[in-house]
């Protein structure tokens, strides 16, 4: 080769190289895992694997503490400073989509065909977010407690009825061995209340918002079924079955310390119970008349509307949906893997695994929280109503006031687009 050709070749080579380097566009990702080593490790792994697997995109991760995450995103949105890819909590997603923070995903939908329904964030008929896990709630107790109190073990197909559940609580209370028969988790104020307790309301036949129209809560939150629920809820505390004022340390360790016979807890805390007791069992929710219900939908990934590279963002999300990562998250933090394949590969959710039942529970009993931008306000109103009723306020009046507030909010926002 002549010198000229070599030079040309080198020049071409370096140009190509530099173009390739320049073509690696940066994508920013915000995640809520700061302070949680396990989650941080896995997400970091996904990011570096993605960056290594292709040369078009380079994802950089910014971690936030979960408690402050939503506020940070809202502030960022106000200031016009959102990342390309962001994490969004399932029930909040419609609110952010309606406000214009998110744009629909452009991923291959066949890849998520067999995902649990709770992990897919749909709004207005489009897919805005998808999650790498689902979360569920169950009644945690020990097989030995069930045996001691002579109780039938409920199964997913034959859960306890409301009466059976209360009889179980009575038995636990009468035995005298527990400070309280039942721990619903009143110490976890915030989104836990609507997430964990609205399934009870739904099992009685009520709901937070009327899902046929999404424009009012009248009749569902203050109808007969709801009042029944409210009376039952109030009775739990008034009759001494459950602790009302609970300090967070007790919630974290009370069941493991034998203070409570039954604990209504999410599967992210289940690993703790499993390590405390080797006969920990996870029972399905009781059926109060309208079928047993549990919550669904947890953190999901979405693409921000201001992102200049939605294809790259969607590519990252698609990459993260691989079974091996789903299994990694499940093994690490105990949450439900969204696909049967990843479940089978996981430690806890494989056939015969200690938390296998959650997968079935999630598939059969999960009901997502109301899919409306108004959920953000409705959740807060509902949380306060639950707390007030638990403290002894008049059930009918409290629920009426809650309905009024939710309805007023929906009206003020032009029905949130419905």
């Amino acid at each position, binding site marked *: 080769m002549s010198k000229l050709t070599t030079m040309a070749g080198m020049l071409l080579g370096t140009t190509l190289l530099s173009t390739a380097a320049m073509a690696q566009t940066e994508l920013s990702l915000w995640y809520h895992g700061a302070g*949680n080593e396990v989650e941080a490790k896995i997400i970091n792994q996904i990011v570096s694997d993605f960056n290594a697997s292709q040369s078009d995109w380079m994802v950089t991760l910014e971690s936030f503490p*979960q408690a402050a995450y939503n506020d940070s995103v809202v*502030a960022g949105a*106000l200031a016009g400073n959102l990342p390309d890819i962001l994490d969004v909590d399932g029930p909040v997603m419609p609110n952010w989509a309606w406000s214009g923070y998110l744009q629909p995903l452009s991923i291959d939908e066949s890849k998520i065909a067999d995902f649990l329904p709770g992990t897919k964030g749909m709004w207005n008929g489009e897919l805005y977010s998808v999650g790498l896990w689902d979360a569920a709630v169950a009644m945690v107790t020990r097989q030995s407690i069930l045996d001691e109190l002579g109780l039938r073990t409920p199964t997913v197909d034959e859960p306890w009825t409301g009466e059976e559940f209360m009889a179980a609580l009575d038995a636990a209370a009468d035995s005298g061995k527990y400070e309280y028969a039942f721990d619903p988790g009143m110490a976890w104020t915030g989104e836990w209340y609507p997430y964990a307790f609205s399934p009870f309301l739904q099992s009685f036949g009520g709901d937070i918002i009327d899902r046929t129209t999404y424009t009012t809560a009248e009749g569902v939150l203050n109808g007969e079924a709801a009042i029944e629920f409210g009376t039952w809820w109030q009775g739990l505390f008034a009759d001494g079955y459950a602790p009302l004022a609970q300090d967070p*340390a007790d919630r974290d360790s009370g069941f493991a310390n034998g203070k409570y016979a039954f604990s209504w807890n999410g599967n992210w805390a289940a690993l703790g119970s499993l390590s405390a007791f080797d006969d920990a069992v996870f029972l399905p929710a009781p059926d109060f008349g309208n079928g047993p219900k549990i919550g669904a939908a947890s953190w999901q990934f979405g693409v921000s509307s201001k992102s200049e590279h939605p294809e790259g963002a969607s590519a990252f999300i698609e990459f993260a949906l691989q079974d091996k990562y789903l299994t990694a998250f499940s093994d690490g933090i105990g949450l439900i893997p969204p696909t049967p394949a990843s479940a089978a590969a996981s430690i806890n959710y494989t056939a015969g695994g200690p938390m296998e039942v959650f997968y079935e529970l999630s598939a059969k009993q999960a009901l997502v929280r109301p899919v409306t931008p108004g959920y953000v306000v409705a959740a807060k109103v509902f949380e306060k109503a639950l707390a007030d009723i638990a403290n002894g306020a008049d059930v009918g009046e409290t629920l009426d006031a809650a309905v009024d507030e939710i309805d007023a909010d929906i009206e003020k926002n032009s029905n949130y687009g419905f």
Partner: protein
Amino acid sequence: MAAIAPDNHGLRLVARYAVLILIAVIFIFPLIFMLMSSLKPDQQLLTDTESLRAFLPVGNISLDNYLAAFRRAPVGLFVFNSVLVTGLTVLLSLVVCSLAAFAFVFIDWRGRELVLTLILATLIVPFETIAIPLLLISANLPWIGLEGVTRGWLNSYQVQIVPFIADGLTIFLFVQYFKDLPGELIEAARVEGASWGQIYRKVVMPLAGPVLATAAILKFLTMYNQYLWPLMVVQQEQYRPVMVGLQYFFQLNRAWGEIMAYLSLITVPVLAFYLFLQRAFIASIASTGVKG
């Protein structure tokens, strides 16, 4: 020094000390609880709260919680950020506010009453009220930095410092203090032909020890303990201060021992600052006697 002459004999002395000590216990016991808890493993920590053991370094004590806290969050970075932001704000604030107070108290100028009233009126405005509008403003202000003129102050140190340099309370403290200074000193200096700047530097400020210390510690506390504002304007970990860092410990894997360790760690700079100020300024009043 205008101290009440004590009766230093026998029983009355013991009685005095007993009262002082009893009150001291009331003020310090939660902090002792925090410190002792930071040395204990979580399980023991929680059971100990039920008895007097909460205040005693008994059981399985170690520094494990501290090591774990450092692993969980970049504690050193957060403390550095907080100290930097707080220190700069305090310094600038002392200068800017004392200058303004000097002008309000000693100089007669057009608009003085109006501006002072406006500034004092802002004492009433709680920060949460103006946080959102302030966020919008800060996102659009220009800044001249290493990259030239950039727009928006988010994710920086200046956004945590500049809005808080001038505040109504600090100015109010200085104004009240300056009002109490003897007017003859100023008059004498004016007669001798000193400029306002010289009077500020050489006559008034040397006497301002106590109020400088008070204003400094108050400002330090306010800035160091900020949570809402840094949360809103800082989205990158490298600029986060300690109170936002506290949220790192309230994740799903909450560990109370680590929380206590973190709280103990972040209290140290403030305590140190206060003790330094006390030694340098407050204790000195006793010996010099400010006003005759």
